[in-house]
């Protein structure tokens, strides 16, 4: 039955491609566009709100709507090392470089991914860690490797342990058939930079429409001042730090002077 409906929907799409985008519209909003890092920052939580707008031409969706969201942070390159016992001691023997992978990645949905769409659809849309592209440097080239690769799995495990990668088929809550929300936890060590939010609407196993949004993590005030000073005026910054050290040392010796 579902299969027949799916094929029907596909045929409909093929017959009238413009109707696919027009019938339903996704409207999403983030609780904030700028996450500010100040001296009391200890992580943040964003809320993603969304509504599905239907116009008159929208067909009845027998199984309702499904939502998937991918939130990904600025890219980074990470060296992953593997230890092995060599003559009794544990040494890093092998390493792989993951090139331009997201520093933060949250893959959300309102129900298990495999119930939302077929594996090939999920793969094309990069839904689920198994479908995320994680490029490794292989010789002069970069490429993703097989899913079962030990380094790939270890990389994901380390990221998940640090709460920088999340995969949750229950994180999107449908408040009403056309209204949803999801909360996006950002740990304190989430990278500074711009984050993209990609929200996808599914019905009957097919992608109906998608929309993107973005937010940024920024350093402000004193934090920003220190970082700018350290990056732009390194030598001066170093000298000031040493002066601060000497002043602190001198001050202590005055305060604690006994003779």
């Amino acid at each position: 039955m579902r299969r027949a409906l799916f094929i029907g929907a596909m045929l409909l799409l093929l017959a009238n491609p413009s109707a696919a985008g027009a019938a339903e519209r996704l409207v999403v909003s983030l609780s904030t566009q700028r996450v500010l890092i100040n001296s009391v920052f200890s992580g943040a939580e964003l809320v993603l709100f969304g509504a599905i707008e239907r116009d008159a031409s929208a067909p009845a969706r027998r199984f309702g709507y499904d939502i998937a969201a991918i939130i990904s942070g600025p890219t980074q390159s990470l060296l992953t090392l593997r230890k092995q016992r060599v003559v009794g001691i544990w040494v890093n023997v092998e390493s792989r470089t993951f090139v331009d992978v997201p520093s933060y990645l949250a893959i959300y949905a309102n129900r298990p991914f495999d119930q939302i769409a077929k594996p090939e659809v999920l793969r094309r849309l990069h839904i689920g860690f198994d479908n995320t592209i994680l490029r490794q440097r292989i010789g002069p080239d970069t490429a993703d490797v097989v899913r079962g690769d030990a380094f790939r799995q270890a990389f994901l495990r380390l990221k998940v342990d640090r709460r920088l990668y999340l995969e949750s088929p229950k994180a999107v809550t449908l408040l009403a058939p056309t209204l949803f929300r999801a909360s996006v936890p950002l740990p304190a060590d989430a990278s500074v930079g711009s984050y993209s939010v990609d929200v996808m609407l599914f019905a009957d196993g097919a992608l109906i429409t998608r929309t993107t949004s973005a937010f940024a993590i920024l350093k402000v005030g004193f934090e920003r001042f220190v970082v700018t000073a350290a990056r732009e005026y390194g030598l001066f910054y170093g000298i000031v730090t040493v002066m601060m050290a000497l002043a602190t040392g001198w001050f202590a010796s005055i305060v604690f002077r006994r003779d």
Partner: protein
Amino acid sequence: MEIYLPIADLPVNVFLVFAMGLAVGFISGMFGIGGGFLMTPLLIFLGVSPAVCVATVASHIAASSFSGALLYWRRRAIDLALALMLLAGGLIGTVTGVWLFTLLRAIGQLDLVIALSYVILLSSVGATMIFESIRAVIRLQQGERIDARRPGSHTWLHGLPIKVRFKQSRLYVSVIPIWIIGGTIGFLGAIMGIGGGFILVPSLIYLVRVPTNVVIGTSMVLTLVTMASATVLHAATNHLVDAVLALILMVGGVIGAQFGAQAGQRMRSERLRLLLGLLVFAVGLRFAVNLFLPPSEIYSFRLLEGQG
């Protein structure tokens, strides 16, 4: 109270970091060492990246050793001439060390070399100090009078050429062993990210026979100069010095160092050496455990350079 560190990019508890500074400062003031070999592993344990640790700890050690050095300066317990001679060797050692550091990093075995040098150096220096000081304590209890200085007992080191008179230390020795000691400390400091005071102090006492009362102040001067220049170098090249973290550590460190120095002056020197020996040995052992025991996670990752 949590505070976000701008360069280390993570929040830490101010009181915890302050207490760490206080504790390490106390130890550094007591034994006349920088305390880098304690502070660096502690910060790494907190989650600060090793590169930021090494760079930031340098400034903390500079503050601690300056306040300590001032204390010893007032007591006239610093041999400036000796400190300058050590520094001359130290600079050459640092340059060589930085060169090897870069080379090892290129090969990819820097971590192993650092861990191994911590194990070998700390456990051997620690064990030597423990044995020596226990012997001294036993001899003292048996009522034997020991004279640490033993003016008549010249070793082969004293037969070397280019002799210089160090008035403050009441020494007339060749500068060659002093340059070698200074050079070794500079070299190890660059490789391991430590001030090297815990090796410098016993080397000066046992090898060159510098009087114990002068040795700590002199070692602090050397530590101060090397760590201050290390801070500036790290800040200018790697931009990894976290001034906020440094300030919290420093304030704790200098306060701890004052109390430590006073406690150290009241203690018998062989007891002091025994304590320091135990501490150094324990840290060495901790690194050994890491090397020999199977880790809970055999994979690790780190950010490649040039990225925020």
